[in-house]
């Protein structure tokens, strides 16, 4: 296959449809939900639920069939040697929904990050038991991932939440506090959802002792104690969750309960989900950035200022230079993202490329949206318009799924061929 940047026609069409949804169900309530944090985008959720549910049903069916075939991937066979476009499609949708509104996009009723983890390392029995709820029914259901703790942010190995096996009842007992859990409250209180909770079964073992556990809604001892008030993505729920002797069945652990010295499969498997989630966060950043850039260009055009693509530097105005720079930065970020996604769809190892695009997109959206507010003057700063909100929303992309700095550290280790011990 030669070098190509062609996005398949069906994906382009789907993107246009999603753009319509974004325009009609997201943009219309963007400001209202930003001004009223903790209110839910009900119309969007109701619109998206049947779509997400049916997609989840199809995915689950495939996953279970694959397990029935002894791991033989029908999906790959059907494609006649052509690479899959699963993630490319998803990337384009995420970009488009984020163009609409990132906060609202994050409320999408689906297993979210919990789904990636269960699909990556869950047994067929676990997939059926945990994911079926996302594939049927009339009421929306959410999943969530709980990793961060008050004392453990980027340093995930510092988590203090414990899981102790009660051998008499064959249950895990969870104790601890999780914070910054996206959609935690939606998963545990607004629906019959679930949360993947990272806890240590052996503090002395460091990362090897860290295991993911599935905690379902209505589990005694689990309480959502807080919904954060935030700088941006205010339509999205960010919860604190406390576990006070919360008991869950033994089979709710994902992967092996064994604490190995090296290469713990559970931890590695779930970390591998970053290879997919980071490009998707990058795509989300691109959506916000594109929204801001598009708005700036539109308003400048109304004021008679066009952006030329054939003038030498000395003939450009300061604003034209700014806009060209914004455009080039976003474009670079998008191309890096597409590269990471193309690799993912081909089943190639993409940790380096995933972190690269995450760094670039997180930084670009930050700079682009901040510049947009500046260029538009009072209009940019006014809460009558959405640009100031996009600046606040965009910033999260440089923070979650690994801050820009954590991802830069990963890039640095990879290019230098250094381990986490060589380069701390």
């Amino acid at each position: 296959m030669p070098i190509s940047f062609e996005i398949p026609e069906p994906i382009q069409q789907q993107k246009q449809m999603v753009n319509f949804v974004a325009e009609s169900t997201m943009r219309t309530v963007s400001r209202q939900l930003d001004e009223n944090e903790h209110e839910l985008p009900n119309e969007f959720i109701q619109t998206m639920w049947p779509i997400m549910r049916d997609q989840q049903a199809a995915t689950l069916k495939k996953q279970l069939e694959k397990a029935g075939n002894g791991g033989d991937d029908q999906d790959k066979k059907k494609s006649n040697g052509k690479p899959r476009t699963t993630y490319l499609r998803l990337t384009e949708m995420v970009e488009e929904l984020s163009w609409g509104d990132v906060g609202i996009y994050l409320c999408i009723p689906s297993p979210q990050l919990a789904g990636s983890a269960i699909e990556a390392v869950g047994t067929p029995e676990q997939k059926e038991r945990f994911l079926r709820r996302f594939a049927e029914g009339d009421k929306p259901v959410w999943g969530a991932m709980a990793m961060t703790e008050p004392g453990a942010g980027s340093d995930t190995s510092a988590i203090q939440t414990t899981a102790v096996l009660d051998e008499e009842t064959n249950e895990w007992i969870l104790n601890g506090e999780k914070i910054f859990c996206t959609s935690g409250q939606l998963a545990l209180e607004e629906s019959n959802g679930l949360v993947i909770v990272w806890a240590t079964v052996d503090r002395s073992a460091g990362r090897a002792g860290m295991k993911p556990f599935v905690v379902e809604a209505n589990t005694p001892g689990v309480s959502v104690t807080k919904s954060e008030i935030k700088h941006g993505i205010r339509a999205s729920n960010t919860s604190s969750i406390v576990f006070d002797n919360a008991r869950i069945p033994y089979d709710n652990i994902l992967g092996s309960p064994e604490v190995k010295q090296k290469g713990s499969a559970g931890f590695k498997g779930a970390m591998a989900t970053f290879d997919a989630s980071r490009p998707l966060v990058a795509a989300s950043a691109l959506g916000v950035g594109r929204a801001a850039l598009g708005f700036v260009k539109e308003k400048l055009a109304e004021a008679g200022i066009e952006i030329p693509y054939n003038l030498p530097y000395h003939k450009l105005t300061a604003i034209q230079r700014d806009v060209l720079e914004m455009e080039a930065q976003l474009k670079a970020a998008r191309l890096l993202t597409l590269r990471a996604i193309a690799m993912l769809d081909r089943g190639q190892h993409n940790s380096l490329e995933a972190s690269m695009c995450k760094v670039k997109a997180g930084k670009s959206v930050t700079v682009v949206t901040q510049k947009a507010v500046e260029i538009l003057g009072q209009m940019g700063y006014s809460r009558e318009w959405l640009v100031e909100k996009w600046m606040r929303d965009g910033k999260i992309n440089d923070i979650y799924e690994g801050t820009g700095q954590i991802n830069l550290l990963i890039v640095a280790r990879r290019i230098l061929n250094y381990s986490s011990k060589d380069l701390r």
Partner: protein
Amino acid sequence: MLDFTPTEEQQMLVDAIKRYATNDLQPNAHKMDENSEVPEAIIQKGWEIGLIPASIPEELGGFGEYSAITNVLALEELAYGDLASTLKLMAPSLFAYPILFNGTDDQRARFLPLLAEEKPYPATAALNEPGISFDPFAQQTTVAREDDCFVLNGVKANVPNAEGAEWLLVYASDSETGQVGGYLVQNNAEGLEITRREKMMGIQGLAAYQVQLSNVRVGADLALNGGDPIDFQRLIDHMNIGVAAVGTGVMRASYEYAIEYAKDRVQFGQPIATKQAIAFMLAECAIEVDSTRLLAWEAAWHIDEGKPAAEITKAAYLAREYANKASLQVTDSGVQVLGGHGFIREHPVERYLRNARGLPVFTGLTMA
């Protein structure tokens, strides 16, 4: 379908150029810079890779079909070896490609076979002009129609290989319409004078000259497109992409050198690469090199796919603008990582910085 892998043929070409870049260009780059000369033997060896003949159609003696993406891949790899040599080696393309795209059938039949020979054909193009405010679309060099010929007047700057060139493609603005055209001028034309060799901050191995045109008369058969308007914007697009491609090569050379150095250089008892201050600079460089490359690829892909003109122009311009800035960031980091050693000419990083700083004025010095 989205794909980031060159074809097997392209990869073989890149591998061949990489051998040339590592074995012939890099080891000699310092000397060539200090001596302000790239030896003919090195150019001959590079010519034998056959990059320009590969763009010339078979019926005109070449062995291929023009591809912007292939040229971008080739230019990055060449510039990875040495930028001055790249510009010198590829200068005939500045004459060949515009004839390929905008020449009349007669011009193509007359000139293109000359560029498909086994020895480099001495031809070049004159676009740039001296001073601080050059705009390729509003040139100071003028052309006026007189009887059945065109009369050129003006001064051109930074014309690669002008001395010894048999033919020069000279760009000029129509004195009435302002439209830019291209005119093929032979070296013995009356009124054509090579006034001096340029002395520049970087790319010192490239012999580039100021050229004076005083009432130089060119026959109507030697105007690109027979004197009718040419698609000059498209030629600029090709130049912009070319600059982005060679920029990527220079950046990569600096970045790779800095990586090796940082892993070797021990201070405070450890390789300096183990410090985040250094490691992060290198990681940023890695991202910028890849960004620039992808932008150049994407712009070239627009050309090969025959996308709408406005989209090509935009992609090419953004790639170029990006390369102008990113190349400076990366090559400056290269010097910074080496610290005091980066300032010493024995290491190539200061040369990379000097070369990269020139990208904004290299319009007309390279074409994809």
